[in-house]
């Protein structure tokens, strides 16, 4: 995608006219210095989270600020993972994983079928369907939460993983369909036709020619869905409030409220554990993120 290359390589600096070269070099040095400061500003909170999580809690509650975990400890992680007196981390992590992975899988399959329909076929309500997908993305989840709660309650699916998964599938579907539609559009249908001329069936041509070309798009879209579902907070807070049914964000919030401001070190350890998968995935697909969003897909 163009944005990836743009971010990584960018355009080469224009050759400067000779007499201005000295001035340019100076200003480049100044901009570079500024960029280091800004890098620190952006990265600092992430660093501070990790840094705090490796320090003993009594030490971060001292008058001295430790910019480096000189008394390195894993105790906070032990507290988060194994302390029986607190809302346990492991079930929440398992819930999050199950819900998120199921959501991504189901949403990808459903969205893939829909994307084929709107890109490879001409039918009456095609345009209407795409516009509907766009409009649905604009309905604020916070406004829907009341009635989603009641609908799920009506199905007796409150505090179940199935209930939350169904809602998440619906939440990530519009975005997933929209993005996949772009990817399928990018593979010319002529390629399939060439395969069909060579004797493939229509489905066979799609499966053997188009599908392999779509694999990177499917992975990227799946990762977007993963991040969205993994980070989702409001819906999980309302639908799955029972401790054994919580997902990680709700668990983290409960952990925060229970520990108040007395154990920041453990809270940072929990926060780090929740953030790491997202940060890793995010760095993998970062380039596609911008281009996907600009072409109409919407983050959370």
């Amino acid at each position, binding site marked *: 995608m163009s944005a990836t290359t743009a971010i990584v390589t960018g355009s080469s600096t224009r050759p400067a006219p000779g007499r201005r070269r000295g001035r340019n070099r100076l200003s480049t040095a100044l901009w570079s210095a500024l960029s280091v400061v800004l890098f620190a500003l952006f990265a600092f909170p992430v660093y501070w989270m990790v840094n705090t999580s490796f320090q003993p809690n009594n030490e971060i509650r001292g008058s001295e600020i430790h910019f480096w975990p000189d008394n390195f400890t894993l105790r906070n992680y032990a507290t988060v993972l194994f302390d029986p007196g607190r809302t346990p981390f492991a079930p929440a992590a398992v819930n999050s994983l199950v819900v998120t992975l199921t959501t991504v899988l189901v949403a990808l399959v459903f969205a893939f079928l829909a994307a084929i329909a709107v890109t490879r076929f001409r039918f009456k309500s095609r345009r209407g369907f795409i516009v509907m997908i766009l409009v649905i993305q604009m309905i604020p989840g916070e406004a829907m939460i009341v009635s989603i709660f009641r*609908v799920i309650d009506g199905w007796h699916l409150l505090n179940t993983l199935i209930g939350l998964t169904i809602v998440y599938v619906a939440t990530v579907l519009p975005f997933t369909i929209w993005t996949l539609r772009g990817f399928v559009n990018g593979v010319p249908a002529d390629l399939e036709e060439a395969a069909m001329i060579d004797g493939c069936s229509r489905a066979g041509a799609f499966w053997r020619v188009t599908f392999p070309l779509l694999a990177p798009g499917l992975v990227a879209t799946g990762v977007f869905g993963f991040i969205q579902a993994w980070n989702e907070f409001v819906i999980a807070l309302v639908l799955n409030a029972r401790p054994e049914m919580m997902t990680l964000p709700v668990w983290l919030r409960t952990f925060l409220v229970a520990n108040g401001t007395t154990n920041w070190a453990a809270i940072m350890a929990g926060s780090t554990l929740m953030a790491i998968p997202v940060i890793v995935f995010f760095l993998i697909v970062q380039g596609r993120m911008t281009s996907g969003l600009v072409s109409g897909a919407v983050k959370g």
Partner: protein
Amino acid sequence: MTTTDTGLPPAVSAVDGERIVTPQPAPPPKRRRFSRRAGGLTPYGLLVPASLVLAAIVGWPLIQLLITSMQEFGRAQVFGAPPTWVWFENYVSVLTDVTFYEVLGRSLVFAAVCVVTTMVLGTLMALLLQRLPKGFRLLLSLGMLLAWAMPPLSATIVWGWMFDTDYGIINSVLVNGFGLEQFQQHSWLIDPLSFFLVAGIIIVWGAVPFVAFTIYAGLTQVPDEVLEAAQLDGAGAFKRFRLITFPYLKPIFLITTILQIIWDLKVFTQIFALQDIGGIRALTNTLGVYIYQVSIAGGDFGTGGAIAVITAIILMVVSLYYVRQTIKEEEL
């Protein structure tokens, strides 16, 4: 790919004898949907799973929301009592409630400040990215990616810790580094104004990278020749940006601004979590949080529904332009 470039399938040119003798007319502009077929019921079948889920989790609740917003629907109704129809009474009570206007005004002003700050800083960052040598650009990109990738809840909690009254690094640096004694044990979240300053920092910090990367990607599309010509004609950096770069990027600016407006107007996680850490809920509620407070926490689903509908309408109006523009650009 070679077969695709001939423009016409071989069968057609074989039948059409005239084409061989007469000079080839310019090939007709290739239509993108040349080979899209009708396919009978197949496309509808492919749409069934997605449509079912969306109908169940978006369509049906949307109808429910409209119905509930016209009913007296409280805790008793949740446990089975039949709701009474009150038609527009909920809307009237919301629209005559001072609290609602406080929340609405707070949300609008807060979103406006966040959006403007994010757009200005994001644009400046994009321009800076363009000027940097490769290594430094990668470094800054990495920093911004980290900020962007942080889950909103984690980000809020970390910033909450940094702004902590007793042991937060910000107070510590202000007191020890700058000698500002008044920040000794200063509480940032009790006062609504500084609560929103912190919330604003969290939101802007998380949103600037998206804007910066998007605009930077756009900047690389602005032709260098035009900028150079303007420079030779004596246009300064600011003038070049205003007269050349900005018009080129106008669609990108518009769409990112609208997305920011939507995201900042319905912000939930950051405000909600900051209230957990130490804000006064009644004085810091924004629309999203207010809906939650009234309906889920307060149990008044009817009024909550009315507020939700009003919020949805406001956001839909804002996003109308975005939807229209996207449809136009994608040539649906």
